[in-house]
């Protein structure tokens, strides 16, 4: 199995390398990336997407929501630690409040009671932490199986997988092999199933899925990092309370209007 996968990856890489004579400025590794993207896409179409679609069809929504919430609650522990590492004490306290509340009143995380009471999820990860600490993001980098990333976020992911407080690592640390593999499988399927809707939309609107996903990923990560640089809270409710308007406009994309006279 592993050998087949590696062989597939090698083929995908070779196929990809010849194709991009002029990589985009924001994507110097475009040739490699497109190859890896094609490989991931093949694996996804052959294995992950059908399983996730089946899971979505067979499993009742409340059950799926419960499973997703349990993994999400585990993930909050790691998000909270990252908020702390970034010096975002309030996010840290809020996230740990969520974990305590959801683990107890929410029956082990099954019900996201915290969100229902207005304590929204504050997403965070180690790639973001590295960004806050001042590491540049490096080129866009498509990871095998895991998809869009940058060099910095890739390092973040690698660290995350080795730290036992992230959901993936927590599952990987289980000694009982069948239990571990089942949970890991469930985690992957849950993650993929949650992307099905976005996937459908991208299929409908993207001219080139690779470019669309890359640009969306880079924009989203930049927006997350910018919001931290501004000292905003990550939760949107009072995001603007602490951001000055001047700073807010700094992060807006600047478009050159080729036909500026038309509007003035």
């Amino acid at each position, binding site marked *: 199995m592993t050998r087949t996968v590696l062989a597939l990856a090698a083929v995908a890489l070779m196929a990809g390398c010849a194709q991009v004579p002029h990589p985009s400025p924001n994507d110097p590794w475009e040739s490699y990336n497109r190859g890896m993207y094609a490989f991931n896409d093949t694996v996804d179409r052959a294995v992950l997407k059908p399983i996730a679609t089946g899971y979505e069809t067979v499993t009742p929504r409340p059950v799926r929501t419960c499973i997703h919430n349990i993994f999400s609650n585990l993930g909050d522990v790691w998000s909270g630690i990252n908020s702390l590492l970034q010096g975002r004490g309030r996010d840290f306290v809020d996230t740990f409040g969520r974990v305590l509340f959801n683990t107890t009143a929410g029956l082990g995380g099954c019900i996201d009671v915290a969100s229902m009471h207005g304590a929204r999820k504050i997403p965070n990860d180690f790639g973001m932490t590295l960004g806050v600490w001042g590491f540049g993001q490096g080129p866009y980098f498509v990871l095998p199986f895991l998809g869009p990333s940058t060099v910095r976020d890739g390092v973040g992911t690698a660290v995350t997988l080795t730290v036992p407080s992230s959901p993936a690592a927590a599952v990987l640390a289980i000694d009982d092999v069948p239990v571990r593999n089942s949970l890991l499988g469930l985690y992957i399927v849950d993650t993929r199933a949650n992307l099905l809707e976005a996937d459908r*939309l991208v299929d409908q609107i993207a001219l*080139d899925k690779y470019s*669309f996903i890359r640009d969306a990923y880079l924009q989203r990560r930049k927006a997350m990092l910018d919001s931290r640089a501004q000292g905003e809270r990550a939760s949107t409710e009072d995001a603007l309370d602490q951001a000055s308007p001047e700073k807010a406009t700094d992060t807006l994309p600047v478009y050159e209007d*080729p036909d500026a006279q038309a509007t003035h």
Partner: protein
Amino acid sequence: MKSFLPSNLHRLTRTFLLGAVLAMALLPAARAEHPVDPKATPDVFLGAVANNMLEAVKADPMALKGDVGHITALVRQYALPYVDMNKTTRLAAGRYWRQASAQQQADLVKAFTGTLIRTYSGAFTRVTPDTTITLLPFRGDTQAGDAVVRTSVSQPNSAPIGVDYRLEQTDAGWKVYDLNVEGIWLIQNYRNQFAQEIGRNGIDGLIKALNAKSGQ
């Protein structure tokens, strides 16, 4: 036979009239409740547009089920009139805009409008009767010609979705020209794809590719 026909016609007329009266009675309920004033401040203007859109989806059972045809029809009716698609397309095309003929520019705007409608519709496929749109405090300068209004779409059982709108002041009042979903600006996300497609197949190729997507 002779006596049957008129009475049948009569019934038909009555049914039709009843239908018309019912439709008229229902129409105000389905129509915009928040008056939209493009000359108001950007947040007030946009809040009305976004909430009218949301309420229209809630009032349409098919749209509420996620029927894309219904949702896109509502987007055309409630949101599109307040969007400056010409500017959106121009900025996405960047330097290639000037290379296009007037006809190509018009076709490109029309084709990209389809993309925008489907993108915006995507934000409304999971609306429930409990979905709400919160306008985040507006801190921009209303005197400036360019403004961003930030909103948060909340629905039970999922994380809130940040949807921001970028507006420009025109003679007719505020017009939306860019849309941001969860940190991703629409124009920014299409600039590379536009350049790539034009570089490969020219402006006509881009128009064709966009239209092919709409046909799906």
